[in-house]
């Protein structure tokens, strides 16, 4: 494939797929955006996970665990997409831990009360839905498919947040007060999620041209505000913006844009919780190192045993296995049979030290919403795929053999059963 073939696909609103040729800039933009998205998913677990132990009802506790779990899942889907572009999860995590790559700034604000859990979900997951629904049409196929799954789950997050707040709005004076205060705290951080204004956004133009992004920061922000206003009314809360009002000429609400200096400050690491969030993430990663190493060591031992049984060079097998697990658990492709009677389809990928854990993770990650009745996991390095470069040689010749299709032979009128 060449630049002109790539441009033609983009212009024709077709998807770019795994292993297709792509300009370096396209690849880099995608990796940057997907990494930032993935980091935001896993960092975003913290402000809410902090409230799981204190959730005031068992039903809310269950919903909150499920939501935080989804965010981990989103991180996994997205790191797997980045891997299709040649990035490695381990490197991306290093970049996050060392502060070289960023995550969304709202995560650096504190969740002070139970109402903050609802406000965070209603506003920031709501903003994420607006952003990601638009991104589902992104030009990179694996990213678009991951986003479809993510969007479905984000709407659950958004909805449960609103539901939590709505219950508070019908509650005691203290509950209603905490609702109002929490919404005031999260309004600005949510608006800031759409990034700097279009006039200042450094990456927007090229991302739009490549159809990685499908709407500008300001368009999405406006869409979000317009959606929030009636919902806030239903909750009986005041959105903290004196300039917020309907503008009949524009057909949109006017509002005060978020404080970009503050956004830039927080992105640069100077928000109220940046230090703690990153330290927490780093600590979890470091404290988990011995576990990951143990699983890798066990997998290597098992590989050596199997090699010995098959009488192939055990040393070589260990070397291969150790190579594969030294830095990171190997990648597995997951195939799910959605129901009896249909074939397994590719769902995504994950990392696991061995097949047993790959199956466990696949079950948790890709079938937790009743999406399957059977699973296959295959080591990614065992898969052989046709080369996109040979697409024409492989698949074009079928196009001029229309006589293979029954529809090539229209039956004479009145003749049936053919």
């Amino acid at each position, binding site marked *: 494939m060449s630049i002109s073939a790539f441009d033609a696909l983009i212009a024709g609103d077709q998807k770019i797929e795994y292993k297709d040729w792509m300009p370096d800039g396209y690849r880099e933009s995608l990796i940057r955006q997907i990494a930032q998205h993935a980091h935001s998913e896993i960092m975003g677990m913290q402000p809410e996970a902090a409230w799981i132990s*204190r959730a005031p009802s068992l039903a809310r506790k269950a919903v909150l665990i499920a939501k935080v*779990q989804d965010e*981990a899942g989103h991180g996994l889907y997205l790191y797997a997409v980045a891997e299709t572009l040649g990035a490695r999860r381990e490197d991306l995590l290093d970049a996050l831990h060392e502060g070289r790559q960023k995550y969304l700034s709202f995560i650096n604000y504190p969740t002070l009360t139970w109402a903050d859990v609802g406000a965070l979900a209603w506003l920031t997951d709501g903003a994420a839905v607006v952003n990601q629904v638009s991104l589902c049409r992104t030009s990179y196929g694996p990213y678009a498919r991951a986003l479809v799954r993510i969007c479905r789950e984000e709407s659950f997050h958004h909805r449960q947040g609103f539901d939590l707040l709505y219950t508070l709005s019908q509650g005691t004076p*203290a509950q209603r007060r905490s609702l109002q205060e929490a919404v005031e705290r999260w309004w600005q951080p949510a608006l800031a999620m759409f990034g700097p204004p279009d006039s200042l956004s450094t990456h927007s133009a090229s991302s739009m041209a490549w159809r990685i992004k499908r709407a500008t920061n300001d368009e999405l922000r406006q869409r979000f505000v317009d959606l929030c206003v009636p919902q806030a009314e239903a909750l009986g809360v005041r959105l903290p913006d004196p300039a917020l009002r309907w503008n009949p000429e524009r057909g949109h609400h006017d509002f005060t844009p978020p404080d970009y200096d503050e956004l830039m400050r927080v992105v640069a690491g100077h928000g109220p919780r940046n230090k703690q969030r990153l330290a927490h993430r780093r600590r979890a990663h470091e404290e988990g*190192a011995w576990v990951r*190493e143990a699983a*890798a060591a066990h997998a290597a031992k098992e590989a050596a045993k199997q090699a010995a049984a098959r009488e192939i060079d055990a040393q070589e097998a260990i070397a291969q296995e150790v190579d594969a697990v030294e830095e990171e658990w190997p990648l597995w492709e997951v195939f799910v049979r959605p129901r009896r009677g249909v074939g397994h389809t590719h769902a995504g990928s994950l990392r696991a*030290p061995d097949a047993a854990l790959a199956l466990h993770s696949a*079950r948790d990650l890709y079938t937790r919403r009743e999406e399957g009745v059977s699973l296959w996991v295959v080591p990614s390095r065992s898969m052989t795929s046709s080369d996109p470069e040979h697409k024409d040689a492989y698949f074009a010749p079928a196009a001029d053999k229309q006589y293979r299709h029954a529809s090539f032979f229209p039956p004479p009128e009145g003749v049936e059963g053919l």
Partner: protein
Amino acid sequence: MTALFDYLLGLGDDALVAAQRTAEWCARAPQLEEEVALANIALDQLGQARAFLTYAGELEGAGRDEDALAFLRDEHEFRNVQLVELPNGDFATTVAKTLLLSAYQNLLYTRLSRAAEPQLAGIAAKAAKESAFHVSYASVWTVRLGDGTPLSHRRMRDAVEEVWPYTHELFEPWAAPEAGLDPAALRGPWLEVVDRVLGEATLARPRDGWAATGGREGRHTEWFGPLLAEMQYVHRAHVGARW
């Protein structure tokens, strides 16, 4: 109060406190895949707790629902074993707790799914499937840590040693007539499961010695009060509020 009510509280409290502990791993698991797995286990345990406590409340007929039972009872009114109160410790300790608890729960739920009492049997049948997966997950990790690196072997061994004294309580005589089983009879099959996993993990079964007891009568460890305080305080700070 009927024996069945008390029994349901015990089943529900075991699951609830286990869920509370398992969920403490959220956002601090050793690997992202384990985030998803541990959250799944916590959700299963919490679902079991809610089913048992809801049923207990209905049976009592005093208008207490799952939340009243979870958030408004004091420490001494909880009927869970002390095993589930133990702090999570490192990942090996959590794996050990999960293995030893879920192997017991799986045997227990499987038996209870055949109980004459239909509602109890129904809840247990669903819980048995869930706990079977927990056993599988914890076994896989016990083996990987036990047979992994020298460090992980040491930690897994220490974890099993540390948790072992708290397992005896699981098999103490304690059951409603409706359950139709003697907990002591579960220990044999439980040891079979545990021995197989420990063997594969190159670990020895700890010697039986001091045995924790008292949870079923409401006597708990020093760790339990803080766990409840954290779990209950928001609910209790707003008397009568809906959530």
